[in-house]
């Protein structure tokens, strides 16, 4: 340990010890918790009206919700372009329940960013009835990322939205349909959907990243650029962001998800379909 290390240690300890204990925090904590719950609920069906005439074509990846049934070769399909942009906001009167039921993870969800993200999705998906925030965070290059579930009456999407650090522009980079499309294995309601092990997206820009949102039961994430050598992804609450190199073969990317008991629950490609 160098002299600087020692002095730093002593300085921090001294400053910390000089602090008087906090007063009663509970009232403020409980009040703020009620506010958080209110804000989260208010995100449901609050996409604003828009007159933007720009259609954002978002390819959709249809996927099998059963964790063990996914076929890397055929597990995805591009949906036809969705309906033309609409100025209709979803009705907040009949919000559909989240089908993933993953809850929210990440940093503070900034209301304005979440609202713009929901709005961008609504342009192309006017049938959306409710939004459920899944993750909010900042990419290493300072862009803001919002991941949310957009629920329609008969289907549900995990949507990745990225916005510049200054909020000047944002776009949907991925929308993944999470309902079971295999008629031989119909979704068994909530149970089968909540077994979805991860949703992930390739996010390009000044720097490129793969963003992986693991199910809440995720214990560890691993990532490989070639399907042979895997590295553990640093995660916070089962979510991870991996910096990747432009020009790599994205089709070769692989993700492994382990649950809290160390059991592999997913080993397959990232969800590759994106806007470009």
């Amino acid at each position: 340990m160098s002299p600087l290390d020692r002095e730093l240690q002593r300085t921090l300890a001294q400053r910390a010890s000089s602090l008087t204990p906090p007063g009663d925090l509970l009232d403020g904590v409980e009040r703020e918790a009620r506010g958080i719950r209110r804000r989260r609920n208010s995100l449901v069906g609050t996409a604003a009206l828009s007159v933007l005439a720009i259609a954002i074509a978002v390819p959709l990846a249809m996927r099998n919700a059963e964790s063990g049934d996914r076929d890397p070769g055929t597990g995805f399909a591009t949906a036809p372009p969705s309906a033309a942009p609409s100025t209709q906001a979803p009705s907040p009167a009949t919000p559909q329940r989240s089908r993933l039921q993953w809850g929210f993870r990440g940093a503070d969800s900034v209301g304005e960013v979440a609202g713009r993200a929901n709005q961008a999705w609504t342009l192309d998906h006017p049938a959306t009835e409710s939004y459920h925030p899944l993750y909010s965070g900042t990419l290493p290059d300072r862009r803001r990322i919002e991941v949310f579930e957009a629920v329609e009456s008969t289907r549900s999407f995990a949507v990745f939205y990225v916005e510049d650090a200054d909020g000047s522009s944002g776009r949907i980079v991925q929308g993944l349909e999470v309902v079971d499309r295999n008629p031989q294995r119909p979704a068994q309601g909530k149970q089968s959907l909540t077994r979805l092990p991860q949703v992930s997206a390739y996010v390009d820009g000044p720097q490129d990243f793969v963003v992986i949102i693991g199910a809440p039961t995720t214990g560890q994430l691993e990532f490989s650029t070639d399907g042979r050598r895997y590295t553990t992804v640093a995660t916070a609450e089962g979510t991870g962001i991996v910096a990747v190199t432009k020009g790599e073969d994205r089709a070769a990317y692989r993700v492994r998800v382990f649950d809290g008991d160390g059991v592999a629950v997913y080993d397959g490609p990232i969800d590759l379909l994106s806007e470009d």
Partner: protein
Amino acid sequence: MDDAMREEFRDFVAARSPALLRTAYLMTGQRQDAEDLLQTSLAKTLVAWRRVRSADNPEAYVRRLMLNTRTSLWRRHRHEAGPVADPPDRPDSADHYGDADLHDALWAALATLGRRQRAVLVLRYYEGLSEAEIADALGVSVGTVKSQASRALAALRTNAGLLDDVRATLPLSSTSGVTS
């Protein structure tokens, strides 16, 4: 949330909030910011308490929230003035022979660091976490932790002008290795 869970949360806050406040204070440099940060993080924890309580280490969960929330607070206040260190609530009587000046200089130098760099140093030198644990807490790779720590220490050494001033006037042999 039932009454038993609520009581459990209250017990957790009562037991751990002093330590968490100290960490928050070292990360923010401001008592008021630290209290705001802790309150917000505990509020988020309360919302998720049903899940958090079953985790091995709820305190680590709160700490991770503080690190993430800190970034949010910073974005919210990014147009405000830069960090200015608070004086400690009371003088430390054990601080003597000019150590106080040295520590003040280091504390001021810490305030010039970026948030993540500062967080890395706090977790490493105050919490005593390993690089892997810091990486987990910050949601970054171990390599990032190493590079952030290295840059932070280099920045502190660059601020050695402050330390040099102290060294020049006081017999602080312990700082002899602190050079840029």
